[in-house]
């Protein structure tokens, strides 16, 4: 990694022709990936990523340069080229930067078995056992694939405000998929547990249970009818069901879009934007949670941020740049995939907090609607608020009871409207793991919620209207 002297020098060079702020981000990540298809190991590879990204901010403009080199000469040249992006000679050039004593975040997210200490074979064995469990569970299962990933990421951040911080993040995850075939059709089921932890995660997380869950999902869906198309009430199960809020309002509450006026929630602090049952939290400090970090990728400590409280908009997720634009304070929400990206405001572990409605009553109150048990993925346009997500395991509710499984539906809605349509929130909050792709790259996030009901959504099925 880089030493303090070099980092100070790079900041100094970067600001030579002007600018308000400069930052150096260095990263060293050891990564292992094992993929299987069926009981066969397809790929098992380890390697190291190493690189440095330098950021220069002047006014409302952000300039970034990165290289995957550790050579001081290359980095000095990179900083010099970056400094030339900025015209004019105002700003803090010539100022002597003194970095405050190094502070390292440690112990907030304890780990025991660094993944490099675990043989590749053990990792492959985990996946093979999962495959066996999945195929044993239902004769319709014809194929599985699995992807094991672990990462040991060390970062260093130094900036022109004198910050110098480091963090080490140990992560592990398996994404398991089972495929079932029936009468010329095929459907898939998924499960993807992970944590900010070492390999000891698999002592408490039984991967075979997840494999069986994925297999049962696939086997149920392949025998299912098409989902109806139209507008219906939707009950979304707890856990990854939180994806609806990740898409419906999560991205629209990220500071970058809000501060540029590109969000439906710009300028609405203090206003009622959701039903009284909705409290939305983003918390990057939850111990060992998949979306957590000790400090964010600008060096700000992570914390619990209540974004919506009983329907009232309280806060946004703020990185330094967007916070400054709005006269607010950065709150630990700045993230980037790697040194190849400038950081920006992003989610971490995002969830709807527990309410007090009964889950069984939710069903009883639904005459004709969809029970979305597992969601797949989705996307949103924060400017308009239009969002979508796919249901990978669904059931039709008729007269208050689950009638039959249904497959193949995407649900769409608008963030500004959907939050008001939440009329019941249960008390069985659960968080599950996923990925989020946006401006600063792909990052690891959790999403969660209790089981809840949305009064009306457009359901994009194919069956009889």
């Amino acid at each position: 990694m880089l030493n303090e002297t070099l980092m100070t020098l790079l900041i100094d060079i970067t600001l030579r022709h002007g600018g308000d702020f400069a930052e150096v981000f260095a990263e060293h990540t050891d990564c292992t990936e094992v993929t299987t298809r069926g009981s066969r190991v397809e790929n098992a590879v380890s390697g190291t990523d190493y690189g440095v990204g330098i950021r220069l901010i002047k006014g409302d403009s952000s300039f970034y340069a990165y290289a995957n080199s550790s050579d001081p000469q290359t980095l000095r040249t990179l900083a010099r080229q970056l400094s030339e992006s900025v015209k004019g000679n105002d700003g803090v050039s010539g100022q002597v930067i003194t970095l405050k004593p190094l502070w390292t975040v440690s112990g907030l997210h304890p780990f025991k078995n660094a993944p490099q200490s675990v043989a590749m074979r053990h990792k492959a064995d985990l996946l093979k056992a999962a495959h066996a469990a999945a195929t044993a569970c239902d004769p319709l299962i014809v194929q599985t694939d699995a992807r094991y990933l672990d990462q040991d990421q060390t970062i260093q951040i130094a900036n022109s405000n004198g910050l110098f911080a480091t963090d080490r993040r140990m992560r592990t995850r398996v994404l398991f998929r089972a495929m079932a075939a029936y009468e010329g059709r095929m459907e898939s089921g998924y499960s993807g547990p992970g944590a900010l932890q070492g390999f000891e995660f698999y002592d408490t997380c039984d991967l075979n249970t997840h494999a069986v869950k994925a297999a049962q999902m696939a086997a149920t869906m392949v025998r299912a009818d098409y989902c109806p198309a139209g507008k219906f009430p939707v009950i979304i199960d707890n856990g990854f069901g939180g994806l609806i809020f990740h898409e419906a309002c999560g991205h629209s509450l990220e500071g970058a879009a809000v501060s540029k006026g590109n969000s439906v929630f710009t300028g609405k602090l203090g206003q009622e934007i959701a039903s009284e049952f909705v409290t939305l939290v983003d918390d990057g400090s939850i111990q060992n949670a998949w979306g957590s970090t000790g400090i964010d990728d600008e060096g700000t400590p992570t914390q619990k941020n209540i974004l919506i409280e009983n329907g009232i908009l309280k806060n946004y997720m703020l990185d330094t740049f967007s916070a400054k634009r709005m006269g607010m304070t950065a709150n630990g929400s700045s993230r980037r995939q790697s040194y190849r990206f400038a950081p920006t405001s992003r989610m971490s572990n995002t969830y709807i907090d527990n309410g007090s409605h009964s889950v069984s009553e939710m069903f009883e109150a639904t005459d004709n609607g969809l029970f979305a048990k597992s969601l797949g993925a989705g996307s949103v346009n924060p400017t308009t608020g239009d969002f979508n997500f796919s249901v990978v395991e669904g059931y039709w509710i008729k007269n208050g009871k689950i009638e039959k499984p249904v497959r193949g539906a995407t649900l769409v809605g608008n963030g500004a409207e959907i939050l008001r349509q939440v009329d019941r929130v249960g008390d069985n909050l659960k968080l599950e793991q996923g990925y989020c792709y946006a401006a600063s790259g792909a990052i690891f996030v959790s999403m969660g919620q209790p089981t809840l009901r949305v009064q009306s959504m457009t359901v994009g099925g194919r069956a009889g209207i």
Partner: protein
Amino acid sequence: MERQLTSEVALSNPIIESFIQRLFDEAASKGLSYVDIGITEKEGLHLTAGQGVLEGLTAYNERVAALRGLYQGKMGTTYTEQLQVEEAANLVQALIDSASLNVDCESDSLPAHKCGGRQVFESALSGNAPTDITGKVNNLLVLEAAAVQAAPEVQKTDYCDYHEFHRKRYWFNSMGMDLREWGSVCTAAVSAVAVKGEQVRTAFAAETGAHPDHLAMNLLGREAGSLAAKCLSGGSIASGSYPVVLVNTVAAALLEGFSPVFCADRVLDKLSLLEGKLGQSIASDLVSIVDNPRLEGGARTMHFDDEGTLTKKLDLVVNGVLKSFLHNEKTAEQAALTTTGHGIRSNHKSSIEVQPSNLWIEKGRCSFDKLLMQMDNGVMITDVQGTFAGINAISGEFSLQASGFKVENGKVTDGVHGITISGNFFDLLREVAGVADDLRFGMPYGAFVGSPSLYVPSLTVAGE
């Protein structure tokens, strides 16, 4: 000031060449019977604009390599971002370690020991790295201004980007093969925001070419701006089955989402419903699909794949009949065929898979206006969202958030939004009843996929 470089000059690289020499010497001395290495050097620039000024600039320079090696009959893989001569020994050791562990890695096929000498390729119209950043920034601001000026309701853009990169690829093996090529890709993209009262609509337009001069910023900006303004009209529609015209970019997005069905690795693993259908009619006779890694100006143009196989154009579907799948060496061996040169890695860390390069549905004969008249009454879809979520390449099913316009008597009328379109890709291919002449490609992430606008007599639309 742009210097004209010949490929030979631009692609000669003493640092890499001495590294390769050391690598192969070290590998031979440690008992590896074969090594190959693919190196990619990328130099790029990404500009973002907003509010009439440059908001962001990212410049980067990277060099990555992916290696395969044979040790005692087993294959090992590794990757690196450090290509100094001193690293050669570490890499060889990593290959040996990986090969030893790959007692578990039961991939049957081992890399073919290709022989051959040195070949240098240049993608047409490429290679000259434009250096004038100020000019490119001004160009991007022209794009933004064109979008905003396209209609009075357009207030701003929420996305206005220019991205260019210059890529050099090298492929060497210990049998003396030495393949080199270089090329450039530039993309401009803009999303215009139109506002009327409480309504906010956005519309997106993008273009990719080999050189910034190929991108028509004014036209692109006007396209996004005027479409955003038109989208302000109308609302949802009744749920039901409708005749649908999928505009070219929407059809391309669908083809891209379903492109895995043409990849032999999915087919052989029983993950594609096209299995067993070679020689059969799988689409309407108006549909022909091509993959051409030699397309001039294609974003994924490559003269050799990541296994060192020289590439060529491939007909996948001809007048509705499935002619071929995409193959790499491993799938070709399993299917008793020859590789089609589609052994491609997603990135330097991944293994060699099967992927399309430049993939498209061939254009038809009728104009877009004639296609609308052929449909007469129905819905024209101009945008779909959530393709990575709402497309299931295994089942063929799709359900996507969509927006567009009603078509009445062959003419575009009110806007339609807040809907989904759903169907099955294989049914859609068979039912295509009209193909326009307006072939257009999508964004250059991964495969570069294009399509003309298509008319499909019936898709399910969910709205009210």
